[in-house]
């Protein structure tokens, strides 16, 4: 470092919801930024995974977009153009299609990686600049089932029930369907702290993941049977007299109906449904009930199901029956996935929501938000289609004809991706804002090059519900604009009502006002407070309010203040295995890649660590199918075929295979997945479908289109 270099900028990692603190510094010579983990951020306390360490490389990827691209017609190639030409085209197409088909002809698709300011502005843009109801985002694919279940049980959905450091003092933690050792490695430190102090970690996962290997107890259920397992655990808890009766009476409602339902989940029935042996169930319940402080945490494995809301509810029921939620140092929590997965779901990107986690069909909410936006409540559209429904309606007679997409790559990340590709192709017009030519951007009519992460400021709300500052470390490259700038200019061209700042700080002031009085109340949070206090937990209704690290200690956010039990029944996966498709497929992530891979597949060390998609197969299954380690394998479901390399491991059940979903092209896991939707959360069933496997004949090894060499 030279004396002339500016001081390091304190910010957070661009990737997952843990939002590890990092400092970015440069030598002032335009060279790559230097990443240093921050010790002062409790989430990571000086730790970083390989994605974090290499995050700065995304700023300088060779194919970074620095000029708008446009194609003259659907068949023409994408070619560089001026910003004016690109924005004129976007505005004129919107105006034309809206004129011909009405406001719902234009759709918006957002992302859980966008800052709070951008997510807020995008929702506002859809509702009052486009006047469309057709907006949703990729968070629908992420934790929406946990959000729906938490809302139903507690009246509010806020990731973790307290600071992440509370976990380190737990006597027991039940982690359902989460492989944090790979998806957010520094989070493991908190679990390890608990274990070192004598606490127990219990992991539920069909795979013996890196996380499961560190657990004191690993329950390895058949994919799609988590709900039966949760009801079975509750049955055991009742039988062994481990319920907190006083808590049940004082703080909850509806337990009797749950008790009746779980009476039908006696241990040996559950053993048969799940494959989890009875003694392990008993041990799990005893560990969970033994100590003073315990947590039940769910992640995508419990949530990404056609009955995901009910699956999560079953685990919330267990937590409630043991008296955990609303007690300091205990509770139920959802491990949010995307960087701003929490904040992204609070401020109006969701089809049915307005800022502050308000419902768009609530007249009071509409009146409040309309007043902030300077429009009449009746001018706000109603609820629109959820993510997969929206994507699969594109270009249909009733569906949208145009779409604006920010911060998402659904060609890789949406279920049954081939249909999504087809629908995108059927649009009259697609505009994508991104900083790299993602697989989805390459299908657009107009591509708008945007600033990323370290080039802009704003706030992110991490998995704890703590609002954090993201700070600009370098200016965006010439030719690149921020999402807020793009929205402001487009609003102007569309003669939208309201004000459209491109300054994150100003947008945040408006967000505070719009969220005031809502569930996710940010009214008392300021940039200055975030800096000074190391983040502020919502709800925080006034600047004098300390924020709420641990909600529900006095009462739950339900009308009567009590948490609500909901009785739920196991029905199994939407698509079960059969003679034609005899093997379960489950999908998930690996450590060195992130989501659709648009960022991480462009970072050399990450590509070295995880170069291509693969399918994990148990040696017994592989032996029967004549598949050897490293062989090419065609994996087929009723929806498509993916070709990937076999990786033999006994860490997976022999009736199940696993494919990570980060890659594009032939190895796309989402060519196979089942878009069966949860009736409440509209979450697709990424975590289980039926497939068959066959070896690819020698000499025709799979081609990896996804990785960039």
């Amino acid at each position: 470092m030279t004396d002339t270099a500016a001081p390091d900028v304190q910010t957070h990692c661009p990737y997952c919801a843990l939002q590890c603190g990092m400092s970015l510094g440069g030598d002032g010579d335009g060279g790559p930024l230097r990443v240093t983990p921050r010790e002062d951020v409790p989430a990571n306390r000086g730790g970083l995974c390989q994605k974090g360490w290499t995050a700065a490389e995304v700023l300088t990827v060779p194919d970074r977009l620095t000029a708008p691209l446009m194609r003259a017609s659907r068949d023409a190639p994408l070619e560089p153009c001026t910003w004016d030409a690109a924005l004129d085209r976007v505005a004129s197409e919107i105006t034309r299609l809206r004129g011909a088909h009405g406001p719902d002809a234009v759709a918006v698709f957002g992302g859980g990686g966008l800052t709070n300011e951008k997510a807020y502005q995008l929702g506002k843009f859809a509702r009052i600049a486009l006047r469309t109801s057709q907006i949703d985002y990729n968070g629908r694919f992420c934790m929406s089932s946990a959000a729906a279940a938490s809302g139903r049980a507690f009246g509010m959905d806020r990731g973790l029930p307290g600071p992440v450091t509370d976990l380190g003092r737990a006597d027991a933690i039940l982690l359902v369907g989460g492989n944090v050792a790979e998806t957010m490695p520094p989070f493991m430190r908190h679990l390890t702290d608990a274990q070192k102090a004598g606490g127990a970690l219990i992991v539920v996962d069909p795979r013996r993941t890196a996380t499961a290997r560190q657990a004191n107890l690993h329950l390895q259920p058949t994919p799609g049977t988590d709900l039966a397992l949760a009801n079975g655990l509750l049955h055991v808890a009742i039988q062994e007299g481990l319920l907190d009766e006083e808590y049940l009476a004082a703080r909850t409602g509806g337990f009797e109906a749950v008790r009746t339902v779980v009476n039908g989940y006696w241990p040996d029935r559950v053993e048969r449904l799940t494959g989890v042996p009875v003694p392990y169930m008993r041990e799990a319940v005893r560990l969970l009930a033994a100590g003073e402080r315990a947590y039940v945490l769910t992640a995508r494995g419990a949530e990404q199901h056609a009955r995901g809301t009910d699956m999560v509810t079953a685990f919330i029921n267990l937590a409630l029956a043991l008296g955990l939620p609303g007690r300091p140092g205990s509770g139920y929590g959802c491990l949010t996935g995307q960087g701003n997965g929490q904040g992204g779901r609070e401020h109006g990107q969701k089809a049915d929501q307005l800022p502050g986690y308000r419902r768009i069909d609530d007249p009071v909410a509409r009146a409040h938000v309309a007043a902030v936006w300077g429009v009449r409540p009746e001018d706000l559209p109603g609820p629109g289609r959820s993510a997969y429904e929206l994507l699969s309606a594109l270009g249909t007679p009733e569906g949208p004809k145009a779409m604006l997409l920010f911060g998402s790559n659904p060609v890789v990340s949406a279920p049954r991706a081939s249909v999504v590709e087809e629908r995108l192709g059927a649009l009259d017009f697609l505009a994508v804002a991104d900083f790299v030519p993602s697989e989805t951007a390459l299908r657009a009519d107009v591509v708008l090059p945007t600033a990323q992460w370290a080039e802009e400021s704003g706030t992110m709300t991490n998995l704890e519900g703590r609002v954090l500052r993201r700070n600009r470390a370098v200016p965006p490259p010439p030719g690149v604009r921020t999402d807020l700038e793009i929205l402001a200019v487009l609003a102007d061209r569309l003669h939208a009502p309201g004000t459209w700042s491109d300054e994150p700080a100003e947008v945040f002031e408006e967000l505070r006002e719009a969220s005031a009085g809502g569930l996710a109340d940010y009214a008392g949070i300021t940039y200055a407070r975030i800096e000074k206090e190391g983040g502020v937990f919502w709800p925080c209704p006034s600047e004098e309010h300390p924020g709420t690290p641990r909600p529900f200690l006095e009462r739950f956010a339900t009308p009567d203040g009590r948490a609500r039990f909901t009785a739920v029944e196991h029905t199994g996966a939407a698509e079960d295995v059969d003679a034609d498709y005899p093997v379960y497929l489950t999908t998930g992530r690996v450590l060195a890649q992130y989501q659709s891979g648009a960022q991480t597949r462009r970072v050399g060390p990450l590509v070295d660590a995880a170069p291509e998609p693969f399918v994990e197969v148990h040696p017994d299954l592989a032996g029967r199918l004549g598949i050897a380690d490293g062989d090419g394998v065609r994996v087929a479901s009723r929806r498509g075929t993916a070709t990937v390399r076999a990786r033999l491991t006994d860490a997976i059940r022999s009736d199940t295979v696993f494919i990570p979903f980060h890659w594009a092209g032939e190895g796309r896991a989402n060519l196979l997945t089942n878009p069966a939707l949860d009736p409440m959360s509209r979450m697709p069933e990424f975590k289980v479908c039926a497939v068959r496997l066959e070896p690819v004949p020698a000499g025709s090894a799979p081609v990896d289109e996804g990785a960039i060499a």
Partner: protein
Amino acid sequence: MNDIDPESRPRGTVIVGNGMAGSRLVTEIRARDPHVPLTVYGAEPRQPYNRVLLSNVLAGVSRPDQIGLVDPSWYEANGVDARLGVEVVRIDREARVVHGSDGSAVPYGTLVLATGSNSFVPPFPGTEDGLPAGAVAFRTLDDCREIIDAAEGARRAVVIGGGLLGIEAARGLAGRGLEVTVVHLAGHLMERQLDPGAGKVLARTLHRLGVCSRLDANVTGLGIEAGRVTGVELAGADGGRESIGADLVVVACGVRPEVGLARAAGLEVDRGVVVDETLRSVTDPAVRAIGECSQYGGTVYGLVAPAWEQATVLADLLTGADAAARFTGAREITRLKAASVDLVAMGETHHGDDDPEVEVIRFADASRGTYKKVAIRADRVIGAILLGETSTAGTLTQLYDRAAPLPADRLSLFFPGMGGAQPADSPVRMPDAATVCNCNNVSKGRIRACWEDGARTADEVCARTRAGTGCGGCRDAVEGIVAWLGEQDSVAAG
């Protein structure tokens, strides 16, 4: 729609019996179709309960009010005409009407018999008018309550019948502090589910828990004084008699399908009501039968799992949710519900080593109460017993249920976690390519290179390679490797 006489009401489904099978069918149908007219008759006046859990109630593990399966308020809320405490006295198949003991007559489109079974009580002399006080046949919740009441002041109990239910009852009573003897006709306990070896180990385990077993024992009668039971009479080995004193006798000699109504209605009945794979009576297409009163493929299924499977199939068929649904037989898996006795048994467990087609694997450690056996034919589990330690039961039950091919490693059928080699944990045995730090993709080779480059402490190695900066879990391994490299170096130098 008003003032419609019963005859012209739309003909719905009428279910006779509200036990495990009938109540399940009601909820399964409602889950698929909220509107189809449904009537259910239950002879017991209370809400249906989980009979599987009666042993827990007897053992004092569950309270009687903790085993309900459907809340009483559910019926009205879901538009189900529930006639609890009403017996069906007659079926008029011609008019398609059932007549209840309350005088009701309900027409049906489909009639489902789910009448279950009754306990079999051997015809002991002097019990023609019923069992004496202190002797109870164990079948219903009322029986269970009666046994619990009787156990209050009792000291010695005899359980007649060493099958599943008898052993569960015996274990429960022993847990309540009674001296308990199980009297069993066969040469070993649970002879339907267990081979003699397992039966022997089970008897030994029970003995430790305060339950004595009398095997090959033929009960000839009950001791009765002043209308109260005083014990049981056994036929002695030499043709004489022997008696065992008891102030509580529990009869658990098995069950008989309740098929009186079906017989009277002229339906074909063997041991149960004979049905096809759509659970339809072979005599009358408007009548179906599920649960313990039905017989499919020559088998009357006595466990709950097949009955619930039948309920699912029938609900699919009756609501049209899945017109292709069929019941093609079920595999029965038995798990004993008795404190401190872990036992699972399934399928054909009696095979010895004499059948060349059948491979038998056994592990026995009688002193610790462990007995494990798996019978295999054509690479499939055809039977298994796990006694004393059941942590592979999840795997075995699923392999058996699905007739799935067996793992190459047979040990994993008995011992969890035995599959697959553990990764090398010693730095010496670890290859250079082995990943030490997953979070930052650092191999042993890179740590070695870093060490050779001058880094001499774990801190230095971690700072340079980023190993240990993610989850922190490899920190010990890094320290181990650095220490080992140091030792190697000093050996080389020395």
